[in-house]
């Protein structure tokens, strides 16, 4: 399922993928959940020489991944993570998918069980544009990067960056690194406290450890 609103041209590497790749050690064993068409796994295999696996919900996505030589299975983050043994991977990645899971907290604790390190990227529902739409128009935010109406959105569990960090604390996960990104996936080059990021970042990538 491609939940990411970030569109790239052919051969172009997504900004958030670049950030994720920079957090993955060379040669790591990686599980990428929500592999889409395999772009991130492909990037990691090429640039970080990882031993990569993927889970993807859509048949079309899986076929595209396998056809490009990636090891990807058709599966669901909500139900299929329990099949994996503890600490089976050096890094587990969940890109732009957490908000679409039925039980984000359980998914998060599964990620922390399977992976020695966990990389999660999420859209920030508390971005100022969203706040503004809710405040001034009084309607659920629909933006370029969150393009769905409330009734057809696959994103059923939105959170702000602050909410996500709170969940990490609750799960005893340490935030090793956090990178704030614009909607396009570019790094926001500001050295600012959390409450600022929670307003200006349209998405963020977190590196977690337990």
């Amino acid at each position, binding site marked *: 399922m491609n939940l990411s609103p970030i569109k790239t041209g052919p051969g172009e590497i997504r900004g958030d993928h670049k950030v994720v790749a920079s957090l993955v050690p060379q040669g790591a064993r990686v599980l990428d959940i929500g592999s889409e068409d395999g772009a991130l796994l492909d990037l990691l295999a090429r640039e970080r020489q990882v031993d990569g696996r993927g889970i993807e919900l859509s048949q079309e996505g899986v076929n595209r991944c*396998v056809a490009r*030589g990636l090891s990807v299975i*058709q599966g669901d983050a909500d139900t299929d993570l329990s099949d994996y043994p503890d600490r089976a991977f050096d890094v587990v990645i969940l890109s732009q998918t957490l908000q679409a899971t039925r039980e984000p907290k359980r998914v998060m604790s599964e990620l922390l069980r399977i992976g020695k390190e966990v990389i999660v990227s999420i859209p920030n529902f508390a971005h100022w544009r969203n706040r503004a739409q809710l405040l001034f128009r009084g309607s659920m935010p629909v933006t370029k990067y969150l393009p769905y109406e409330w009734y057809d959105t696959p994103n059923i569990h939105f959170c702000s960056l602050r909410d996500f960090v709170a969940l990490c604390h609750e799960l005893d996960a340490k935030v090793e690194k956090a990178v704030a990104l614009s909607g396009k996936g570019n790094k926001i080059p500001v050295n600012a406290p959390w409450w600022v990021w929670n307003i200006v970042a349209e998405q963020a990538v977190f590196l977690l450890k337990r």
Partner: protein
Amino acid sequence: MSADKANSAATEDLKASEVETPSSKLVRFSADEALELDSGVRLGPWQIAYETYGELNADKTNAVVVCHALTGDQYAASTNPVTGKPGWWSLMVGPGRPIDTNHYFVICANVLGGCLGTTGPASLNQKTGAPYGLDLPVVTIRDMVRAQARLLDYLEIDTLFAVIGGSMGGMQVLQWAVSYPERVFAAVPIAAAARHTSQNIAFHEVGRQAIMADPDWRAGRYIQEGVRPTKGLAVARMAAHVTYMSDESLHQKFGRNLQDREHLTFGFDADFQIESYLRHQGMTFVDRFDANSYLYVTRAMDYFDLAQEFGGSLANAFKDTRTRFCVMSFTSDWLFPTSESRQVVKALNAAAANVSFVEIESDRGHDSFLLDVPEMFQTIGGFITGAARARGLPAPGEEVETRP
């Protein structure tokens, strides 16, 4: 003798000669080189018939074993000598095909218990001078794979780049990966399962009972007695054939259409096209297959339960495997449904194995793996290419240096 009967007798002679001296390649093993079977019996002398396509490279790293299904044979990509029809997997195996014989050395052997050249119930029992019939020990999927491994030893091929097959062929693929993990680099089980379910066994039992109920079966000694249980074998095939198709594909192909008639005849002729089709399937099948072989090979599938020798844990069967797997199922396959493939995938994940899994959209049932399903070819082609890269083999589409 009518032309039909003469024709049928000629096919029968041809089939009989294929049992001992097949048109394909053949290796004979002496009594000293017996095959140890799961039943505890040592089978020898024995022989294995096989076909090869493409060339083995100098390092012997490009060998691919193709495993055939219940009624398949070694003629995966070449003309079947009995039927004169093109190989059963010509769409998958050949120059420029997903399993590209310009790059890979493909080996396909007739299974143990089969009837086209590998030792089976129609083969001559040297102790009695008559065909084995039911004196052949019951063989298993593991025995079939053992026989193939012996063939590879004979060919001095240590490791396989890939093992691939559908249905019972997929069972052999899984058995290969479990029995000889160090010999299998990549494994592609298609429309398969790690065990035969109760429903699978039930359908096979119907087929076997049909054969054994035929008075011409003669307790398995029909060859000596100069008869053939064609009616029983045809019924077995008809029943099985229904399980290979989906309700949807039967409906699309035949619906309730009548066969060469305007009205129902209020009798038991083949009024419906589907009846006529099934009768045809049954009758053509008996020309190319041995009834006792059908008993043995279906039994081998029934006995298959990969987890059994690992305390019921399939994950333990794949423990520490380094093989790359590509598991594939079809949406409309109700004989080997996706849930069975998922069990395999689940076990492979628990074993932290390298696995891909795709469920292909197809309305053509279990037989989809034999048919023109572009998405299947594309996925397998991609998987094979990726595996070739990992193995350091030149993949199709990449430049190959050819030496004069």
